[in-house]
């Protein structure tokens, strides 16, 4: 047996009475910091590329009209916050909250002059905090082959009615009766929502390049890039060619960080690029084997990526 180890053992055995005495005289104390009893509400929100929505207190309760297109409001509007949203959407609350939900206003309508107490149409106005977040929810819920209708922005038919966005609001209108003139009602209802409460300004950031073929929202990993999330892509037709403009918005710091991620990516995969200066702005021309030549155009609160053309003439549109 190793004599050194034996010495240590004897020393430790000798210390045992001392340890026991300390515990006996000082007692066992509960350290509350060992257990975290904080509720979920008290925890910090996870870091996300989408900025936090305004708090429930700050969000405005949407005032709905009493009379719309031959219908009148039945009873009072019901308002929901993050805390009780589950009472209304039963299960889908987490999805809305993670997408930026700030508040929900639900109203019901019946035909004007009707004495019924059964709602014929229900409206749900989800305040998503930001217009891009409202757009994200709409993109998720509309599916790939949604039938468009001209209501609000990007309205589409659902199995029971019509959904659309207006500003930061995602609106669902559900008709309980197939005879209800839901399209007429939806148009009237959309008109009552004030665009001042957050018009969808992000669309105005897109250049006017021609006929718009489609606009879509990509929540994560745009074009397979791990660092590129919450992208709005607009496709333009140019004769038989397509030009796609991808747009990301955020704070100046977020855009700097995004540019840095792009440059790291170019270096890692040996993707050649040139730094150009156009009208005092920094622009990157990227010679990508897989995407073709494309442009990366950073701005203070916006990052554009332009695919489908290698003509620098396009830069003057940004």
């Amino acid at each position, binding site marked *: 047996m190793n004599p050194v180890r034996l010495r240590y053992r004897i020393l430790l055995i000798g210390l045992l009475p001392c340890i026991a005495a300390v515990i006996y005289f000082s007692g066992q104390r509960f350290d509350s910091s060992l257990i975290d009893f904080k509720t979920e509400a008290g925890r910090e929100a996870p870091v996300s590329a989408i900025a936090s929505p305004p708090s429930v207190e700050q969000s405005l309760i949407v005032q709905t009209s009493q009379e719309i297109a031959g219908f009148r409001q039945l009873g009072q509007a019901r308002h929901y916050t993050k805390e009780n949203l589950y009472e209304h*959407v039963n*299960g889908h609350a987490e999805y809305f909250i993670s997408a930026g939900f700030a508040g929900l206003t639900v109203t019901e309508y019946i035909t004007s002059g009707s004495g019924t107490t059964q709602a014929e149409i229900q409206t749900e106005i989800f305040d998503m905090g930001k217009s891009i977040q409202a757009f994200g929810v709409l993109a998720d819920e509309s*599916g790939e082959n949604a039938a468009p209708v001209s209501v609000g922005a990007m309205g589409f038919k659902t199995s029971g009615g019509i959904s659309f966005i207006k500003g930061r609001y995602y609106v669902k209108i559900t008709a309980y009766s197939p005879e209800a003139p839901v399209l007429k009602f939806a148009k009237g209802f959309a008109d009552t929502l004030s665009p001042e409460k957050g018009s969808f300004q992000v669309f105005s950031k897109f250049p006017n390049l021609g006929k718009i073929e489609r606009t879509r929202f990509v929540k994560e*990993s745009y074009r397979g890039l*791990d660092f590129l999330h919450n992208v709005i892509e607009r496709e333009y037709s*140019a004769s038989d060619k397509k030009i796609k403009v991808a747009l990301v918005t955020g704070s100046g710091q977020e855009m700097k960080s995004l540019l840095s991620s792009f440059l790291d990516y170019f270096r890692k995969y040996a993707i050649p690029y040139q730094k150009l200066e156009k009208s005092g702005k920094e622009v990157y021309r990227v010679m990508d084997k897989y995407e073709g030549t494309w442009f990366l155009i950073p701005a203070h609160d916006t990052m554009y990526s332009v695919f489908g053309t290698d003509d620098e003439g396009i830069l003057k549109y940004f």
Partner: protein
Amino acid sequence: MKRRDFIKAATLATAAVAVPSLRAETVEGTPSVKSYREIGQTGLKMSDISFGTGKLSASSMILRAVDSGINYFDTAPDYGQAEKTIGEAMVKLRRDKIIIASKFCTPVPYPGHLPLGTKKKDYIAAVEGSLSRMRTDYLDFCFVHAIGEMSKDLEAEKKRLLDGEMLDAVSELKKAGKIRFLATSSHGPTNMEELLMTAVISGHFDMIMASFNFMKFPSLPNVMKEAHKRKVGVIAMKTLAGAKDMDIGSKEQEFSHAAFKWVLKHPEVSGLVVTMKTVSDIELYLKASGAKFTAADKEVLDRYVRLYDREYCRTGCGECETSCAAGVEIASVMRYRMYFRDYGMEKRAMESYASLKKNAAACSGCENPVCIGSCPYGLPVKDMLCDAHDSLSFMA
């Protein structure tokens, strides 16, 4: 320059630029396919790790994959915009260098499988739709997809599998050079092994694709052996067993690699198909190509089993299906829950869930939850169903 002039000039400029051909030139150290295996007796060899397009984000992903040596692409009309996106890539690819597999489906939110009773002309139209979207003249494989999913009735699904209208359509499509081989796939939820065995012994199918991973299935090896004997190709899917914890491995032993190597150690398997969502996925997954399954890999998988054995629903098992008096489509609900929670395919999962005839809406108030205890693997079925409904339902 006016807008219209710009568009015209841009078009001409773009058209004039010759598309550079894809070469096998990759950045040093970038992983690539190391092994190709024959698919039955088709004469085709596929990359052992191949590309599932369930969440295809851009045509450039296809081009990157091809450059990395991947040559087999699994798609379907009901995988969102996947076929159109492949079509965008197709103009830059040599068609004879890649293998395209699609399904007898319509382009509606998943599942868009053609049901029993579909006419021959509609089978043909479905394939022609796929060809048009992918800008190609032919499919290498066309699948009777997800057999065992449309009905719990074994005989009904057997009829769909061997439907005369479908076989007539295949014959005509083959003659026209629009499809080369017929295949079928299954991830259950019911009768997976029996239906795949039926396909193998029928002589009509050149390849089967099954859910196959280290956590299941008792009878599947027999089906695979029979397929091998009859020279019917076998492709594996759902190989990550739910992919609940991709970080379970270590720096040296990546979980996905261990799971892939386990599948590929079976000589009957031609290759596996895995959804590749990002550039990093391609890089990560291909590191397992051609590699041997080791004792260290087994340790990683054993750890996964210890952690998730009672959380992972073996799609294709279906033992719980008969227990529910209300007829809840338990296994399908569980699979869509897996797509939502573990695969990050929220939208598709919610759309699919919405299309179920009997979803889990009533489970939370169920007074006779006989599903508890019905799972041979000990899963808390009722709790999982309630959780699935919470996650997957759009509205109350």
